[in-house]
């Protein structure tokens, strides 16, 4: 027996180590459990959940070894870029300033144009009792490391629970959504990108209003695989967050449809590949959404008010200009109206239907006024 162990010592050690890790792997794998409890829940959205507490502690230890080095390299890089950008590379600053001023002027005009639409949209939302979730507070964080594997699209950010970050909070950039927080440590957090295979988000196609779920595909692509072939879906269509996943606020840019192809492995569904709105490969600074609210934030309210004022001012100016132009230009003079003629305004009275040729109880006017009716069905005798 001893000779057996001595002879196969190396192989036995390998088998034992692989076996232990296989068992550990089996323990870690979590199957979706919420599906049975809530039939409306989508299984695909039940992925990308945080680890159990023990695994989180292991990840925290692992990350703690590297995080100080990553912070150091990131800080050194930032310092060098700061020195270069602020003291050395100032050649085109004046031109950039001029271009930015022109862009601000253009954006002000656009803002005025959109203000009226925004007011109308909010009025309709109020009528429909729709509660829009606006981003109330964010925490800016910097990306300090990656997972180092193209099988796992995850990055490490330099803010953690000490800044109030929590698991499953949405992470965005000004360009669009980026991902959500997976494991949050005291001074850092893992950000699961939307192109990770275990990631998922609820989206809506902007023009066709079709709802779908995005997740990461092979090679770091973002895909929709739960839609069948539909002629309304075409490349170039913009995708927005639908808010249905309870993670990302509604209406944030997600990406643009890049290609649509049949999915041979999941017929009859199609594989729709997106180009993410945010550059997921070159993330440097991100915003973690730490709070949402149903009212527009105060700063946005001020912007909207100023835009409305600008819009009113510009429309008044436009009217005045139009009136001035009308006075100067020759116009058709209408003949004087007959004072004895009846008013001819079509909107002065509600339209009346033509009288019925064979009136019955459904004809207009045949129904007795509501004040003469009594609630409830008529008694049996009366009906007979």
């Amino acid at each position, binding site marked *: 027996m001893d000779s057996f162990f001595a002879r196969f*010592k*190396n*192989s036995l*050690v*390998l088998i034992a*180590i*692989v076996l232990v*890790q*296989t068992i*550990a*792997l*089996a323990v*870690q*794998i979590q199957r979706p459990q919420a599906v049975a409890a809530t039939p409306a829940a989508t299984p*695909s959205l039940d*992925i*990308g959940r945080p680890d159990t507490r023990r*695994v989180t502690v*292991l*990840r925290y*230890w*692992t*990350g703690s*070894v*590297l995080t100080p*080095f*990553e912070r150091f*390299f990131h800080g050194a890089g930032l310092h060098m870029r700061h020195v270069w950008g602020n003291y050395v590379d100032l050649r085109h600053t004046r031109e950039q300033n001029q271009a930015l001023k022109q862009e601000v002027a253009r954006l002000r005009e656009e803002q005025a144009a959109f203000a009226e639409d925004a007011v109308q949209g909010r009025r309709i939302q109020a009528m429909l009792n729709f509660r829009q979730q606006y981003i109330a507070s964010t925490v800016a964080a910097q*990306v*300090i*490391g*990656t*997972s*180092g*594997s*193209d*099988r*796992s*699209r*995850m*990055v*490490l950010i330099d803010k953690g629970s000490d800044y109030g970050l929590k698991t499953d909070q949405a992470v965005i950039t000004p360009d669009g959504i980026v991902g959500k927080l*997976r494991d949050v440590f005291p001074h850092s957090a*893992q950000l*699961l990108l939307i192109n*990770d*295979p*275990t990631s998922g988000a609820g989206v809506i196609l902007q023009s066709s209003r079709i709802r779908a779920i995005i*997740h*990461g*595909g*092979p*090679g770091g692509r973002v895909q929709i695989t739960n839609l069948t072939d539909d002629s309304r879906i075409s490349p170039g269509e913009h995708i927005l967050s639908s808010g249905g996943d309870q993670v990302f606020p509604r209406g944030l840019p997600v990406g643009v449809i890049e290609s649509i192809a049949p999915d041979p492995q999941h017929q009859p569904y199609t594989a729709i590949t997106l180009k993410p709105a945010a550059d997921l*490969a*070159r993330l440097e600074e991100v915003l973690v959404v730490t709070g949402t609210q149903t009212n527009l934030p105060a700063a946005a309210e001020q912007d909207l008010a100023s835009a409305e004022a600008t819009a009113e001012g510009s429309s008044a100016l436009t009217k005045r200009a139009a009136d001035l132009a009308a006075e100067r230009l020759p116009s058709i003079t209408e003949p004087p109206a007959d004072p004895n003629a009846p008013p001819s305004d079509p909107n002065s009275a509600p339209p009346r239907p033509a009288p019925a040729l064979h009136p019955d109880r459904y004809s207009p006017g045949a129904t007795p006024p509501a004040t003469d009716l009594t609630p409830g069905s008529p008694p049996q005798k009366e009906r007979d």
Partner: protein
Amino acid sequence: MAEHSYTSRQELDQYAFHPAVTLLVPVAAVLLQAELPRLWPPLLILDLPLIVVIFFAVARRNPISGTVTGTLIGLFQDGLTTQQFGINGIAKAIIGYLAASIGFTVDLDNLLNRIGLNFLLCLLQSGILYLIERFLVGAPGTRLQPLHELLRAGINTAIAIPVFFFLDRFRHRD
């Protein structure tokens, strides 16, 4: 001056490393693996920890040592990803064992042998990872991309050769 006499190929080719090298080189490899793709995303195709596992396993010519080194580096790598602990641990344990076992029979100071070994073991690791993700974990959307894996093996082999020559400086005979 002490004289050494070696009686077998295993003894002739076994090397040891300073504890600091044993500790710092894998940490540096994992750190670079996490940092380099941040600077240039295509570098995600690299697998520096794998190169280090193969190097230490081949240099020590000890399958148990190779297995343990591969397991520890693999688990460390798993801790930085969203994957379960054990995926890289199992794959690199097998790679470490095989690299050390092959080291008995093949002269791995030869450049061509090093190229062939790195290329084959890199491909093998891709296959093992695919099998683990597909059948053990059941990860959604797992697909084997043969061309991508061939490219990965080629690039990692090209990186491994100078890394091996650099790390050769730190080895010494027992």
